[in-house]
């Protein structure tokens, strides 16, 4: 019993020093189970490779330069799409959030198009733009746009009216109220929107790459299927999860907390 408590205390202290450790430890049993099933030989190894095979393939693909290239392609597509989506989505969200007329006109249209998911656009996009970057960028921008717009509207509408009034009676013009009050007040929600948008965009990108692309992680996985390389498919899946975890837990979530919590806009 005492030993268990000692272990627990050691773990608590370690994770406080290296918080990343707390994210890794839960995967230990998952990987262990995977190894055990693979080692037991229930399934043929070509169908169900173990962790070691996947790690080996990881190093091989890095050595060949394929993985870094594909990963770079996917990330550039994601961030280009996200940047365009934000550049369109934040101003649109502010407009809808501040103007009652814009809200009345745009809101139904927005909800209508939100229902037509990213992949549902592919048939028409392939006819219009063909298999290429334009189609992929369209899908990413489209996917990122909605969470950014909807959360920006929410953020703008949640800024207390008295704040804008206070700024006006301290001499701010309506344009400065937008810059000094509306945007900072909506910022925590805008970041939430960005966080959701990137998450959806990342998934949409992989799907589109499978169909449209000749590079990228999605293409790598689909191409591996053609070659019957289960290892590379599993590797692709692991990279997707890992990369998103890093972007979300290490960049986006702290950013979200830093704005909202510091200002007392978000509790806990």
């Amino acid at each position: 019993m005492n030993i268990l408590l000692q272990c627990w205390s050691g773990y608590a202290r370690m994770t406080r020093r290296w918080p990343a450790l707390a994210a890794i430890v839960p995967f230990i049993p998952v990987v262990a189970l995977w190894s055990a099933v693979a080692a037991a030989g229930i399934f043929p190894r070509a169908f169900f490779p173990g962790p070691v095979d996947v790690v080996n393939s990881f190093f091989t693909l890095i050595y060949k330069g394929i993985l870094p290239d594909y990963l770079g392609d996917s990330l550039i597509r994601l961030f280009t799409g996200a940047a365009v989506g934000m550049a369109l989505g934040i101003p649109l969200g502010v407009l809808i959030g501040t103007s009652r007329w814009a809200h009345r006109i745009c809101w139904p249209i927005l909800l209508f198009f939100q229902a037509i998911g990213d992949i549902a656009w592919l048939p028409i996009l392939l006819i219009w733009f063909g298999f290429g970057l334009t189609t992929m960028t369209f899908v990413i921008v489209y996917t990122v746009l909605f969470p950014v717009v909807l959360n920006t509207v929410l953020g703008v509408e949640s800024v207390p009216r008295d704040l804008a009034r206070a700024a006006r009676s301290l001499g701010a013009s309506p344009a400065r109220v937008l810059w000094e009050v509306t945007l900072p007040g909506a910022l925590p929600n805008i970041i939430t929107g960005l966080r959701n948008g990137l998450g959806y965009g990342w998934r949409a990108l992989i799907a589109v790459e499978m169909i449209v692309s000749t590079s990228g992680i999605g293409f790598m996985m689909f191409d591996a299927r053609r070659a019957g390389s289960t290892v590379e498919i599993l590797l692709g899946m692991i990279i997707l999860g890992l990369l998103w975890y890093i972007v979300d837990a290490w960049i986006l979530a702290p950013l979200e907390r830093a704005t909202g919590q510091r200002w007392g806009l978000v509790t806990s």
Partner: protein
Amino acid sequence: MKTLSLKNLAKTYFDPYAGSHVNAVHDVSLNVEQGEFVSVVGPSGCGKTTILNMIAGFIPYTGGEILLDGKPVREPGPERGVVFQSFALFPWKTVLDNVGFGPKMRGVPKAERDRIAREYLALAGLSHAAHRYPNELSGGMQQRVGVVRALANNPDVLLMDEPFASVDAQTRMTLQEELTRIWQERKPTVLFITHDVSEAVFLANRVVVLSKGRILDQVEVDLPRPRVWDDLVKDDKFKQLSARVLQMVRAA
């Protein structure tokens, strides 16, 4: 002399659910002279906040006029500072930047507006809190910031909308005493809205009693200053005045 004057001020709403017009304020005429402290007191729904919102330029009026220094008022402007019941501090700005906001809007350079903000923070005994964020302060401290933020912009008239209604009773008394002290030092023109009769009498030179959108009566308060609660609670004149105003408000 910069006089705030309301002439036959009126506000009519159209209530779409009732399908009829509602007169929230009718025919209010009132002058507030420069350096005067006027309290407006009345039961809830008497139109006092509506009047303040019209003077501040937050909502339009439908009849009569509002003049400040002879010029008609239509929109919010820095010559009319407002202190809100909700404090309305900018949560993403430090206390210093909140107080320096008005000067910033006037284009005052950073160093100068920090100096102004520090001067006003010292006035409210808040120098130590300059670099904190509003949510790190108690309600009483937040409203001190709210008051000096409005004062730091050097407005012609200070409009206060039940500013102490959301702090606890002890803090409220302290804030009231501080406000009378600051008023004596700086002599700003103040229009103070409240539903609390003793607060209205304690602070003001003149108490205006409002009922159903009309001015019922006005009472001069010639109590000596500085005013502190420890003295006034025992003061017969204060008790008499409060009782008189209370009677009017209750009859209203």
